């Protein structure tokens, strides 16, 4: 199999299987009293951490491609990001339904008064335009440069998600701190000193590490315009 085929027939199906498997397992557990003493907490823990992991994996694709030259990694970026949004949305929905019983007034008060809730809510809002523009059609319509600029919101979202987690915990900050450390590493890989080839002025951001000798790869945001779906 070519690497493109590996991505298409192995890696992507694996992401789908895990990405949908966890919510399926949580749903099954909810109906079979198998989510521990506090099922809502279990669901929120898995969906919240799942959203962060999804965002981090998505953010890891660009440095992974730079480090390995494995250009196909970039094809996974949007899929992982969409799963991050799915998890963030499930997380938000369980909050709206189970924590606040669909009361807009209680939600408004909670979001306004509690910093960690504000951070979580803003994080989810930031992800909405990214999810909406995640289709191949939207990528085409916006054009690579504008699309990439818009999707830089993901950095804010990832930071917001970590802050949401950090401000939630009562005293034991170890776990959110570990998430924060991963994010710091992911952001550090984007500092200019890591990129081996500074692009000439005016070149689209994000293609900096492209080995000059290789055939020009398609703009990374546009991967699926070539793929047959």
């Amino acid at each position, binding site marked *: 199999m070519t690497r493109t085929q590996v991505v298409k027939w192995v890696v992507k199906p694996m992401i789908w299987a895990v990405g949908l498997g966890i919510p399926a397992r949580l749903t099954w557990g*909810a*109906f079979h*009293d198998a989510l*521990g*003493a*506090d*099922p*809502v*907490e279990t669901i929120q823990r898995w969906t919240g951490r799942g959203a962060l992991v999804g965002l981090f994996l998505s953010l890891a694709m660009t440095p992974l491609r730079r480090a390995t030259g494995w250009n196909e990694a970039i094809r996974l970026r949007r899929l992982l990001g969409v799963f991050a949004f799915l998890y963030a949305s499930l997380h938000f929905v369980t909050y709206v339904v*189970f*924590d606040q*019983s669909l009361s807009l007034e*209680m939600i408004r*008060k*909670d979001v306004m*008064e*509690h*910093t*960690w809730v504000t951070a979580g809510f803003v994080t989810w809002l930031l992800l909405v335009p990214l999810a909406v523009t995640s289709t191949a059609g939207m990528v085409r319509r916006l054009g690579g440069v504008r699309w990439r600029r818009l999707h830089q919101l993901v950095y804010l979202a990832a930071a917001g998600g970590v802050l949401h987690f950090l*401000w*939630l915990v*009562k*005293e*034991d900050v170890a776990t959110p701190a570990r998430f924060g450390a991963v994010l710091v590493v992911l952001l550090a890989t984007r500092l200019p000193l890591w990129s081996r080839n500074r692009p000439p002025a005016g070149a689209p951001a994000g293609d900096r590490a492209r080995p000059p000798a290789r055939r020009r790869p398609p703009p990374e945001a546009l991967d699926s315009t070539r793929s047959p779906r």
Partner: protein
Amino acid sequence: MRVRQRGELPASAVTPESTYLDRRNFVAAAGGVALGALLPPGWRAPRWLDDLKPTPYDAVTTYNNYYEFGTDKASPAKLAGSLRTSPWTVEVAGEAKRTGRYAYDDLVRPHPAQERIYRHRCVEGWSMVVPWLGFPLGDLIRRLEPTSRAKFVEFTTLNDPAQMPGQRGDMLPWPYVEGLRMDEAMHPLTLLVTGLYGKPLPNQNGAPLRLVVPWKYGFKGGKAIVRIRFVETQPMTTWNIVAPNEYGFYANVNPKVDHPRWSQARERPIGEFFKRDTLMFNGYADQVAGLYTGMNLVTNY
């Protein structure tokens, strides 16, 4: 939170009324059965405030905040097994006539165990109903003959990192210390607990001896108590030291006084999906509100 039946059908002008009514009955009956079977367990039987149906034993003994055995709620049940609760001695100290070291049996034996089914409300926003086994702390205090200078009682939890792995880190300043005002300690609802569900207290629930003050947030109930001290001034209590703006000395359950980071107006009963309203003094207002007459409960949180 009442679970609403979905599937209210709009009236139809086309269908004859009799058929329409029939269909409605059928849908209501079938829908009710189907919905009941489909809903997660916590949705099927909403538990009402006055229905003191005990939380299942498994939940009570596997969902614990006991940082001496880790901050994860599942870890006390996994790690507390190694705690040696026998022999156990409790030091009685401070402003009382009968101070000294008491063997557990000497302290507890004179007081017959009673079952008390109490609501248990955590400051984090969840709650349980627990059938405790214990005796009123006031009975013990009378036996220990505190002096007139005893205005507060302080409870200290075991400090032994060898047995309590959570104490190897500095998550909290060890040992865990809690305290009550004398009148709170003497209140007939205040319980020294030695068991639950008719059995000896599991280690993860605070064996061999813990405090339960049902109208206060759960953290007021010190576990694995090794010292009871009568003092003249308000004790420095652990969570109050760690985060004084979030956890006060009184920590009375109060739906109107929010924690800085979350509302205390509602709580999630463990095992249920939806929250319900939190009651003033956790539902024990009739018995305990008098203790706080004239006190500002917003500043004395």
